[in-house]
């Protein structure tokens, strides 16, 4: 990736999104919130509010820069490699799938490797036998500014396939750009550390849910205890009245 591309991409495009977003949220209720919250709220379940494009693009570009490093590439290791092998068969198959998603995203967009916890957020759909196998690595692609956070996934690796990301260096040879990205720019350390964060967040969420479920159950108990107390103190009440 040439210096010119970086200067433009970061200095004009990314900066533009940040400036515009700041202008849009100053003085509104979105002003103090975290970027992820702004994205979820302005996504408005598909009925995009004006700040969404800017907010999501800021997040996406930050994630993109952090997915890369000079002298990157090679292969991942440790937990990440294990999960990749488990969910894709082999590292090569994963790379193929990722490249395919990135090159077939029509128009502007992004391709991602995400960590999906596969939770269903409805009260009566409980996984009877939850296991570590339910949490998967998946390759997804998204158009324009859309972002896997909206699909309840944790993005681990990002590649920008808007034309501005590769046009100066590769013109319309998007597959070449993707190959170079995978061979020389990907920072597997960053991806691994995001994986650890994602796993921790998922574990946290599960613990929260356990706690909430137990709190709900406890609320129902005093009701039955009150009945018991009434029966037990039946004799006592009579005695005190007699006095």
């Amino acid at each position, binding site marked *: 990736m040439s210096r010119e591309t970086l200067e433009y991409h970061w200095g004009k495009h990314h900066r533009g999104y940040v400036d515009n977003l700041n202008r849009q949220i100053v003085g509104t209720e979105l002003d103090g919130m975290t970027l992820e919250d702004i994205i979820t709220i302005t996504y408005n379940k598909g009925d995009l509010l004006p700040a969404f494009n800017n907010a999501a693009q800021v997040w996406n570009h930050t994630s993109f820069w952090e997915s890369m490093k000079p002298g990157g590439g090679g292969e991942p290791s440790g937990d990440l490699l294990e999960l990749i092998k488990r969910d894709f068969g082999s590292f090569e198959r994963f790379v193929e799938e990722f490249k395919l998603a990135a090159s077939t995203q029509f*128009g*502007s967009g992004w391709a991602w490797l995400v960590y999906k916890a596969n939770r269903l957020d409805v009260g009566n759909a409980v996984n009877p036998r939850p296991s570590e196998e339910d949490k998967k690595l998946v390759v997804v692609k998204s158009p324009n*500014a859309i972002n896997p956070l909206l699909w309840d996934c944790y993005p681990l690796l990002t590649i920008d396939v*808007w034309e*501005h990301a590769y046009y*100066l260096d590769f013109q*319309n040879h998007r597959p070449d750009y993707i190959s170079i990205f995978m061979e020389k720019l990907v920072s597997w350390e960053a991806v691994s550390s995001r994986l650890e964060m994602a796993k921790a967040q998922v574990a946290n969420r599960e613990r929260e849910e356990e706690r909430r479920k137990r709190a709900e159950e406890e609320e129902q108990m005093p009701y039955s205890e009150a009945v018991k107390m009434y029966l037990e103190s039946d004799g006592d009440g009579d005695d005190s009245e007699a006095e």
Partner: protein
Amino acid sequence: MSRRTLEMHWGEHHRGYVEGLNKQLEKDDILYGHTLDELVKVTYNNGNPLPEFNNAAQVWNHDFFWESMQPGGGDMPRLGLLEQIEKDFGSFTNFKEKFLEAALTLFGSGWVWLVLKRTERCLAVVKTSNAINPIVWDDIPIISLDLWEHAYYLDYKNDKGKYANVFMNHLVSWNAAAARMARAEAFVNLGEPKIPIA
């Protein structure tokens, strides 16, 4: 628009779409028999596009785009087309503003069009995403501007406004637009013609 952009845009992008489409059509006899217009409408499939749609529509869009321009273009339309623009937008300046505004507010890849709407029977500025094209809604395009980043990145980087302005002031071919408008009026009744009395 620089020579390099033209060479790339036409020689690689447009050609790529044409070759891709040809390869897809080799496998399908029915689709192969269609004209390009029919192909675009059929593969749009009322909003659930078939795989050939992207290629077909982009070939159509780019053909239309090249013919919407001429060296030494720009300036203003005249006579009938100008009257219609003034009727539907108030003034030519207002139309130009609306067109440029659409170009700046389009997010992601897409196109901006001046169309003659069939049911409303008036001109309008529309913007579409990716490969979408007003003929799928049965409207009649008069001019178009390609706002995919590949169309302007080499010349203007991310300055969409400048690109759109140059298009409006130096490239747009009102002759082609007038010809298309004349043909469109054969299909859409725009009201009684005002025949000037001596």
